[in-house]
């Protein structure tokens, strides 16, 4: 009896203690509810209203939609595959239709695991709790946040129907890869609307919300399939599927839509554009303002650029024996600009966006080498009244440089020594003659010309070698050469034609206003020389590859062999191609010209494709230009039987062969 009495005493003590503790807990709970309620967020009506975010749409100049940003548009449950609804209920909250926001059994189980097995966390959130968390709370795990989340869930359950809650949930849940809401996820992962999801696809999607990055099917396809298996087993357990059907579905491997590795734009052009829009209007307007942006991009040219870069770099990899797993592999940039307006028509900032997002076309400043010569020649022709037929000597010369030092230059291009006309010197990229020109006119004159043509990178230099070592971006080069192409009229490169709000009101439109910066006749004389570079000089590969349109350009190589350039233009389109390593290192090619030749090949392939539908047209010749024929080394009218001749454009007052005009 003594034992019985002791037991009874224990029971009694526990009973009353439990009663008292329960009472206190209830009081505390009510205290928290009454006083904490004021700090809870207000619920919107209807629940899905605030999920809606107007979409910002970005279009190409040619009319195609390039990307939609910030779009969140809830789709009704009737437009979502029932397979997905079943799958998400089975795996996330199979008692959703029964509970009132809180699954007591799961909560008790989770509480038990949390208390008994420290370190292990058991999730118990219902769909309503998840919705409350996603709509109102941060992802920081605290007990207070969990409690608040529970209270909001209870209010949601009290205020809205199960259909409304489920509708809001499936439309805001994150699936990874930038996809929020089932409609967007279905489009991102499978390229179809949510209504058309098959059972296999729906089950795969339903498995993602638990850990979108861990189960990202683009990166971890097998993991995603394993997770889908769990979902399908849950569906069988809940009676949504027969075992036979489940086995059948498990054999299927859903095909993912291409080009959606994650939330990134996948485009160097769009990255640049988005940065500009953010700078101009701010993130809120871009991602929440529902604006419509018309860009300058020409999709056909962009396709051509992408294909050209891929093929060209694959070929270069073979030539160089590049191991693609190496940390540092050769990179490329290509920019094409409309010479008449400055519109950027195509842009590749690297060989593969998903391999490296760094935009070399805009942000990379690299040594341009003799690509700077057109600015030097223009400055000399303007200041010294020399022209393509002026004779100079290709010889080793001494140039005074900083701190009283003398620089002796040799011509590395293998051009013949002795006299030659300037047109021949540019055609063969003769450094020593360029140096003599610099010595005559001074570095500042060259810098001034480069600046007015649109080169904005720092150009602090004192001698010729530094001058051609100027570090500029491919965009600057394409834009600056476009100034020559358009007869000396410079247009700043731009990316945006027009921005409209959601109602179609124009909030910005670009005006094409050229600035006359170069003398048209002198600019034409330089273009004539640059045509000779393409026809007979260092870029004659352009012609060898069958590009027959009027074109001009200039190659450029860094003296150390780090960078290879070709920038060239037709009367309508200026394109710059750069090849090199991100961290400057010698391009380990069989010979010095390999990388430059690849840049020329890419330029040719791109221009051939980009201009295939445009009629060829010649460069316009200023009225005051006349043409004379001379010998390439004498600068004088050719004698009888002399087959080697060069045509030189002359301005009024310019003379040949030492004659007075």
């Amino acid at each position, binding site marked *: *009896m*003594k034992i*019985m*009495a002791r037991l*009874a*005493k224990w029971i*009694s003590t526990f009973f009353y203690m439990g*009663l008292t503790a329960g009472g206190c807990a209830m009081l505390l709970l009510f205290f928290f*509810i009454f006083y904490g*309620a*004021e*700090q*809870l*967020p*207000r*619920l*919107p009506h209807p629940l899905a209203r*605030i*999920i809606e*975010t*107007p979409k910002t749409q970005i279009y190409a100049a040619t009319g195609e939609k390039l990307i939609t940003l910030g779009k969140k548009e809830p789709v009704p449950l009737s437009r979502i595959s029932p397979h997905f609804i079943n799958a998400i209920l089975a795996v996330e909250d199979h008692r959703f239709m029964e*509970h*009132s*926001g*809180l699954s*007591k059994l799961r909560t008790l189980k989770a509480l038990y695991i949390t208390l008994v097995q420290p370190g292990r966390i058991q999730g118990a959130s219902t769909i309503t709790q998840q919705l409350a968390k*996603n*709509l*109102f*709370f*941060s992802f920081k795990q605290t007990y207070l946040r969990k409690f608040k989340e529970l*209270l*909001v869930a*209870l*209010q*949601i*359950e*009290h*205020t809205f129907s199960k259909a409304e809650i489920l509708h809001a949930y499936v439309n*805001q849940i994150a699936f990874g890869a930038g996809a929020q809401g089932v409609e967007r996820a279905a489009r991102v992962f499978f390229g179809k609307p949510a209504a058309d999801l098959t059972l296999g696809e729906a089950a795969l999607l339903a498995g993602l919300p638990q850990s979108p990055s861990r189960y990202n099917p683009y990166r971890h396809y097998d993991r995603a399939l394993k997770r889908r298996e769990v979902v399908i087993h849950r569906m069988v357990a809940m009676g949504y599927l027969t075992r036979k059907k489940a086995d059948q579905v498990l054999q299927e491997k859903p095909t993912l839509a291409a080009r959606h590795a994650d939330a990134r734009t996948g485009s160097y052009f769009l990255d640049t554009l988005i940065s500009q829009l953010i700078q101009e*209007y*701010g993130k*809120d*307007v871009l*991602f*929440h*303002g*529902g*604006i419509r942006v018309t860009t300058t991009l020409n999709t056909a040219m962009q396709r051509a650029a992408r294909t050209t870069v891929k093929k060209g770099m694959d070929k270069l990899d073979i030539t160089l024996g590049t191991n693609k797993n190496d940390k540092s592999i050769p990179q490329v940039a290509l920019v094409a600009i409309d010479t008449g*307006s400055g519109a950027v028509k195509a842009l590749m900032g690297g060989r593969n966006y998903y391999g490296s997002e760094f935009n070399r076309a805009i942000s990379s400043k690299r040594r341009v080498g003799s690509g700077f010569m057109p600015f030097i020649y223009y400055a000399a022709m303007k200041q010294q009244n020399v022209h393509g037929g002026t004779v100079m000597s290709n010889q080793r010369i001494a140039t005074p440089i900083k701190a009283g030092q003398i620089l002796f230059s040799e011509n590395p291009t293998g051009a013949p020594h002795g006299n030659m006309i300037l047109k021949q010197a540019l055609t063969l990229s003769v450094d020593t003659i360029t140096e003599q020109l610099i010595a005559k006119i001074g570095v500042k004159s060259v810098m001034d010309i480069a600046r007015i043509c649109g080169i904005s990178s720092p150009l602090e230099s004192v001698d010729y070698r530094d001058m051609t070592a100027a570090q500029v971006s491919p965009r600057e080069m394409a834009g600056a050469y476009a100034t020559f192409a358009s007869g000396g009229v410079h247009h700043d490169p731009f990316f945006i*034609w027009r921005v409209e*709000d*959601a*109602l179609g*009101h124009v*909030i910005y439109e670009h*005006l*094409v*206003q*050229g600035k006359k910066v170069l003398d048209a006749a002198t600019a034409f004389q330089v273009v004539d020389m640059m045509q000779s570079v393409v026809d007979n000089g260092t870029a004659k590969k352009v012609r060898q590859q069958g590009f027959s349109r009027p074109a001009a350009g200039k190659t450029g190589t860094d003296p150390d062999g780090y960078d290879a350039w070709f920038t060239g233009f037709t009367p309508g389109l200026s394109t710059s191609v750069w090849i090199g390593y991100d961290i400057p290192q010698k391009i380990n090619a069989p010979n010095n010209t390999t990388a430059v030749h690849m840049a020329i090949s890419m330029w040719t392939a791109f221009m051939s494709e980009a201009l295939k539908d445009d009629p060829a047209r010649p460069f316009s010749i200023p009225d005051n230009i006349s043409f004379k024929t001379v010998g390439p080394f004498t600068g004088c009218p050719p004698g009888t039987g002399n087959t080697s001749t060069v045509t030189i454009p002359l301005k009024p007052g310019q003379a040949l062969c030492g004659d007075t005009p």
Partner: protein
Amino acid sequence: MTHWHESTDIKIWFREMLSPLHLLMVIILAITAVSEWQMSWCEHLVGAYLASSNDKRPEIGTVWETEDRTTTAQSYLKTITDSRKEATRYAREASSFIQLASGILPGQWTHISKTHFKQLYLALPEPTAAELIPTLELVWLFNGTGMDKIFCEGKSHGLDIYFLTPENRVVRQISLSRATVANLDQDNSIFKGTLEDIHNFAGTIYSANQFFKATLGLPSETLSELIIRPERLLPDRGKISRVGIWPDQRSAYVQMGFEVHGSRGDMVIFTKGRNWAVKQLVQRLTGREQ
């Protein structure tokens, strides 16, 4: 008193344990627990209470912040479009370039129709119009180019007017500086001060006597072109003491300033004359007449 659980008698123990009070408490607790488990009334109660206080609670949390961002973005865009609408309205209602320039503030822009521009242009006095843009050039712009629309943009220095092709290429740009606008303004044809205060007249100031004497000696066809708007000089503002001639030869017209001493102080009244007519006058004034 001995408690029921302290009893050594099993019968008493059971009797006490199953007393009505104890049974009632257990039954109440059991009903409460089971009903809550089955009906979730506690959750409903809390949910109902929270729903009742919903409107008093703050709009905080992720989703409200998102909506705030949408609201901010849309109000920013509305500011831009409203500003543009306002500029468009002012431009549409403008009956002179002065109204057009004062209606489009710096940062605002709008398009005006070609017809409207022509109306504004034709409303200007001939010399002023020609200074803004030569009439022949305007004829060329309207008929000899692909000009399709006219874009006006408010700038800190005044108003820029662009003549555009359908592709938004600028065919011609003119700038209406504040000074030009002030010149267009009839009320601004009067300057409070003397000719010395306007440095452009330096070295070309003549006494009224000298001026009118030289003027009256000119042929009648020259006289009619010498002062284009003589009516500005007719109101009785005081006595004309000196005349300044703005020696700018770039336009077809020459600016002249008549210094007046009156009861309202010194002032200069501006008017214009044909270049060739003023040239003849100056030759007489300087004694360089052949």
